[in-house]
């Protein structure tokens, strides 16, 4: 029951129009007002208005038409269909070739609704924040133009009704990310970071494209509605290659795509570097929205992942390892934004575990809460760096709580939330993922995998609480450690920056209510409401722990039951882990950088470990050596050796050289001296005579069946030289039983290919000779060959 709504296109169009105005129209009109460049207020008014407009429209569409549809669907109770169609708009057919049809169409269902509100809501706040943060920037219009363009592309990504349309947004956000990371391109490092992000994303896109192709190969469709038909699902279950299902390979390809965009192992390396961009960009693109696109995509394709438990296991394991490694890498960072970047990578890992174990709601839930507190953290970091004259070195901060109270309190709230302290939002979402992992168990997973995921995440959560509070204490706790010059400039940021911080903090406090834990009473009814789960269940068929209440026997992932005691136990455990992390951090960094730790990092094993962590396990260096250098080296080698030397040097210019030299050599014969020509005539004549008078004959053979063999005489060398044969003909005889007598005699005719069939006694080797008698000179030419007749009963014989 999909309903058409013709307003959907406006949601992405508004920000795109804003970008167009800021990047082109205002710039072209600026000279009319007598100014060289467009005014800043016009620029940010356009930008903010367009995003706020999109937010308002999204609120309306989700709140009125979609809500109506949802309530109606919800009211049906057990009789309701598995999924609810949502709103739909078909704009035009983008590509239609042969069997491939891609419509430019949008859909707004409950999953998209969540993303829409996050993108436009947080996006609006970040746009407002940027007014203060980017104040005085020379390329102010370009910044807002790109930011708007990004928002529009992100909206296309989540609204797209088919994979190719999603891919438009997917690549579009990558482009904006590239432009914004390298926004201050005068620094080569920034431009490098932008390029690195684009290329790493392209590796993912490569897999994404192949995924689209393979999916079409399997099911003949690329749009989401079609793909969920039973026939398509059946096609995904077919075994494709190496005993694995079609669904596995497709899911894996899409997951590689997700790894690129959402910075998972092994493609995460671009995200920490992406911090080179302005801070609002880090908040919007590299924390709240774009990097979560991979998670969104997997949830969107949950019907696909549900049919390959292997693929889901890979998603979950990669997510868990990323969560852990990124958390460890965050320990040793001394740059404010770098710590947050690794934290983002780590938290994305949590989300992937959530979707990997089939707890899709948990993954989306964490995506939402993370969007609030991580965007907040970045904006607060921006506020701090603004105060610190642009520096992000946490070793030179400290004691800022006195100078910037609003930023400090907001920052603290975000930290508590990300550490997973009750009752802040991060607690609920992280707990749901942990519980999902603990209870996960699918066909072929074995009993340990779920526990392993849970344990890994728990350690990562401990690490998260620790490094976040290390950060907090180093920035706001203790005493100020910067120089006097910087100190004199420290100030709380303007309201345009701190109000968004406070709004985000408020949401961070309360947003957890949308996903209370699943506690059941005696009648197996939920005690606490689970709004997000109910909301999403109309779109995402949830197979994990939460399928408790949704009778779904078709899934390959069995339901897992957690008792109330266990659920509460896990919650208390997660809470305790958060507290341990915080107090450890307080104990070590409560009064500023710890000298003990510093000393530990200077000696023996401590130093080695510290170096490894500080250098991010040398992964960047490894990539540098194995990929970049390889690529460069291969490029140079191919160019110098293959292109320049082999093809151009040897073959092309070589043949020219040969012709040049050859013609000079031939000149020697054309010297006008008659006696030399005469020698040529004599020698040539002799050669012709020699070749013409010694013709060779031969024949081919082919085994037809058991003992029968077909012979075909071959006169190719003969007829060309002794052309007279064509006219006069010749007699051919075959001796097929080695008795010296002709068994077959025929006149040769050039236009009728002669074929001789003979049946032999059985498999073995036989001597066959053919004789040709020339009708003109009456000369005989014979040839004898040993042929092999194969036993066709044996496998591998001639057909």
């Amino acid at each position, binding site marked *: 029951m999909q309903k058409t709504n013709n307003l959907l296109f406006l949601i992405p169009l508004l920000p795109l129009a804003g970008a167009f105005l800021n*990047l082109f129209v205002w710039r072209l009109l600026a000279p009319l007002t007598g100014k060289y460049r467009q005014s800043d207020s016009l620029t940010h008014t356009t930008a903010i208005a367009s995003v706020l407009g999109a937010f308002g429209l999204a609120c309306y569409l989700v709140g009125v038409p979609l809500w109506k549809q949802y309530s109606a669907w919800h009211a049906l109770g057990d009789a309701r269909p598995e999924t609810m169609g949502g709103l739909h708009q078909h704009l*035009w*057919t*983008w*590509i*239609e*070739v*042969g*069997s*491939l049809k891609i419509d430019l169409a949008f859909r707004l269902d409950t999953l998209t609704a969540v993303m829409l509100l996050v993108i436009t809501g947080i996006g609006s706040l970040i746009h407002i924040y940027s007014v203060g943060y980017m104040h005085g920037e020379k390329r102010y219009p370009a910044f807002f133009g790109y930011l708007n363009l990004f928002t529009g592309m992100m909206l296309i990504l989540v609204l797209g009704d088919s994979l*190719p349309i999603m*891919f*438009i947004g*997917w*690549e*579009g956000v990558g*482009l904006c990310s*590239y432009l914004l990371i*390298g926004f201050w*391109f*005068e*620094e*080569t490092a920034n*431009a*490098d970071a*932008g*390029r690195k992000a*684009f*290329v790493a994303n*392209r590796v993912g*896109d*490569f897999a994404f*494209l*192949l995924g*689209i*192709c*393979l999916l*079409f*190969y*399997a*099911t*003949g469709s690329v749009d989401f509605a079609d793909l969920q038909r039973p026939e398509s699902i059946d*096609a995904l279950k*077919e075994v494709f290659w190496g005993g694995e299902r*079609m669904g596995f390979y497709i899911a894996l390809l899409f997951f590689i795509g997700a790894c690129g965009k959402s910075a998972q192992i092994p493609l995460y390396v671009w995200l920490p570097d992406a911090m080179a961009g302005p801070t609002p960009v880090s908040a919007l693109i590299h924390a709240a929205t774009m990097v979560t696109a991979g998670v969104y995509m997997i949830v969107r394709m949950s019907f696909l992942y549900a049919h390959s438990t292997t693929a889901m296991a890979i998603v979950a394991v990669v997510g868990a390892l990323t969560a852990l490694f990124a958390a460890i890498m965050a320990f040793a960072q001394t740059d404010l934004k770098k710590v947050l970047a690794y934290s983002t990578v780590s938290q994305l890992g949590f989300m992937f575990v959530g979707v990997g174990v089939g707890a899709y709601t948990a993954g989306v839930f964490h995506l939402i809460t993370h969007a609030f507190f991580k965007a907040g953290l970045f904006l607060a970091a921006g506020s701090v760096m603004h105060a610190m004259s642009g520096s992000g070195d946490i070793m030179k901060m400290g004691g800022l709580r006195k100078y910037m109270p609003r930023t400090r309190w907001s920052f603290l709230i975000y930290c508590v939330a990300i550490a997973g302290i009750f009752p802040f939002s991060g607690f609920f979402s992280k707990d749901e993922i942990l519980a999902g992992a603990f209870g996960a168990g699918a066909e072929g997973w074995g009993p340990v995998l779920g526990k392993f995921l849970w344990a890994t995440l728990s350690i990562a959560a401990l690490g998260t609480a620790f490094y976040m509070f290390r950060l907090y204490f180093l920035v706001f706790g203790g005493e100020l450690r910067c120089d006097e010059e910087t100190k004199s400039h420290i100030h709380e940021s303007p309201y345009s920056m701190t109000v968004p911080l406070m709004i985000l903090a408020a949401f961070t406090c309360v947003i957890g209510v949308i996903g209370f834990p699943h506690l059941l009473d005696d009648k197996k009814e939920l005690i606490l409401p689970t709004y997000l789960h109910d909301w999403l269940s109309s779109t995402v068929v949830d197979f994990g722990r939460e399928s408790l209440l949704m009778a779904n026997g078709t899934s390959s992932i069995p339901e897992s039951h957690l008792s109330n005691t266990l659920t509460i136990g896990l919650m208390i455990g997660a809470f305790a882990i958060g507290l341990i992390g915080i107090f450890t951090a307080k104990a070590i960094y409560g009064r500023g950088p710890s000298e003990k730790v510093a000393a530990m990092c200077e000696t023996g094993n401590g130093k080695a470990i510290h170096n490894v962590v500080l250098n991010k396990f040398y992964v960047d260096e490894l990539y540098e050596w194995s990929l970049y250098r390889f*690529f*460069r080296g291969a*490029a*140079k080698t*191919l*160019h*110098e050796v*293959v*292109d320049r030397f082999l*093809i*151009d040097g040897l073959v*092309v210019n070589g043949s*020219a050289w040969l012709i040049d030299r050859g013609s000079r050599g031939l000149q020697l014969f054309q010297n006008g001296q008659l006696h030399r020509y005469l020698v040529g005539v004599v020698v040539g004549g002799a050669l012709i005579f020699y070749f013409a008078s010694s013709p060779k004959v031969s024949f081919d053979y082919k085994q037809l069946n058991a003992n029968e063999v077909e012979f075909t005489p071959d006169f190719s060398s003969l007829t060309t030289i002794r052309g007279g044969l064509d006219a006069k003909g010749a007699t051919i005889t075959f001796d097929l039983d080695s008795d010296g007598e002709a068994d077959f005699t025929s006149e040769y005719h050039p*236009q*009728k290919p002669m074929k001789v069939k003979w049946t032999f006694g059985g498999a073995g080797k036989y001597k066959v000779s053919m004789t040709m008698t020339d009708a003109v000179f009456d000369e005989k030419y014979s040839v004898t060959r040993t042929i092999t007749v194969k036993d066709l009963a044996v496998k591998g014989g001639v057909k």
Partner: protein
Amino acid sequence: MTGASALLPALLVLPLVGAILVMLLPKEEPGLARGVSLGVSIATLALSLVILGPYDTKIASMQMVFDKEWIPGMGARFKLGVDGISIFMVLLTTFLTPIILLSAFKAITSRVREFCALLLILEVGMLGAFLSLDLLLFYVFWEIMLIPMYLLIGIWGGQRRIYASIKFVIYTMAGSLLMLVAIFYLYAQYGSVTGEYTLDLTQLERLVLPRDVQIYCFAAFALAFAIKVPLFPLHTWLPDAHVQAPTAGSVVLAGVLLKFGIYGFLRFAMPLFPYGAAELAPYLAYLAAAGIVYGAFVAFAQSDVKKLVAYSSVSHLGFCMIGIFAMNAEGIEGSIYAMISHGLTTSGLFLAIGVLYERRHTREMSEYGGLWKQMPVFAGLFLMCMLGSVGLPGLSGFVGEFLTIFGMFISGGTAGEPTFWAEFMPHPMLLGAVATSGVIFGAIYLLYMFQKMMFGPLDNPKNKELKDVSWREISVFTPLIIGIVVMGLYPKPFIKVMEPAVDRFISRFEAKLIEPDGPAHLIGQPAVASDRAPKTAPKAAADPHAGHAHAEGAHKAPPTKKPTAEEPAH
């Protein structure tokens, strides 16, 4: 012949007259020559748009056919026509010519008259070759194109222009001579089967040659076209020609001339010798896939930006080759699309390089850096062309690249339904995957180029005085960028025009491919093994299109490789 058919010869006459007119202008007034030639080229563009009026997008076969006797003794005719494949090539040519002329206003200062006239003659040659429906006529136009191009490089080129222009000509000639031999062989065979001697493509298409002969003939044609594409490893003339050619020459070369390779395969080589094409398709497709990766790698190794873009053409045209050998609508239409898109984006890149070259007279990337700051408008234009070339979705490059990859990926059919091509194209998915890797490499070298030139500190003092683009230069880029965006966002109308012609191409290809083995015969007619039998051979049917029906029941000797043909054999 309707009134509309006079349009096509008019399209050739107009620039030719223009060229003559330009040569008659006084030598002292180069501005006049520029203006007149620009006017003529715009008029030609307008005329080519007029063709769209009577052109019926639903008709698959040739339209507006102009057919006159040319060399009666030989059976060569002056026959022109357009269909859904060639119309885009014609439009691309007429679209790019004014842009090229406009872009050269400042760059060419010596022998302006000759330059303008040569470009117009080149346009005549290109249009003629795209429109020709007679093999000899095509060959003549094909060779005519070489001369102005040779002169463009040789007169207005860079330091090693003589080497580059000779290399260009010899490379191309070497390929096309074998093609000429194959054309005459085909001519003779057709004559001996039907008793009529003709070089008319529509007639010759009906001839089915013996299989091994098809392979040789296809190879001869393929060599000529593969050099033009250029297909790896026959590409080394291209970087030299590009680097030495003036900007206008590079644009014409990349924008239009390279397309003759792919177009030749689609129009001549494949319909004439389907079996040969089928047998050699895997090798050509492997070379194309290798070329995609190879071109990208070698492009990355360049320090001369023009060479980098030249090698990027090797990579991009590889996608087009992959597309046509996918032998399905997706692949072939994608290939045509990719050709048009390449014509726009790569022309844009060469023009951008030209803008910088006019100012700084160097093409070394290390000489530039941080130009965005100095020339923001130029940077935006350059960025759009670069992104179009990278294949960003929403811009033209993506549609073609995606469709060719997609087409190759499913060229053996989808999971449930294999197609006839599955027999001939082994490992289409592997080929598709290798081609897809081009999207990564393409991003690497193009972004690297862009970063080297536009980003980073503006530290070269010579660059600090660079002026941003003028209005004339903006107007050169604008139509290209509009094209790139429109073709990226709304490809449907373009694809719709190609569709009937491509479908017809595929169905005819398949029909001819499954013709029985044996001596040369006309399609649909039994292949009788007769000795020298022009007397007994059937006369050509009156309707040239009547003969392409399937040869039902005519399978005397079932071909070895056709699945459907095996049924009557058992």
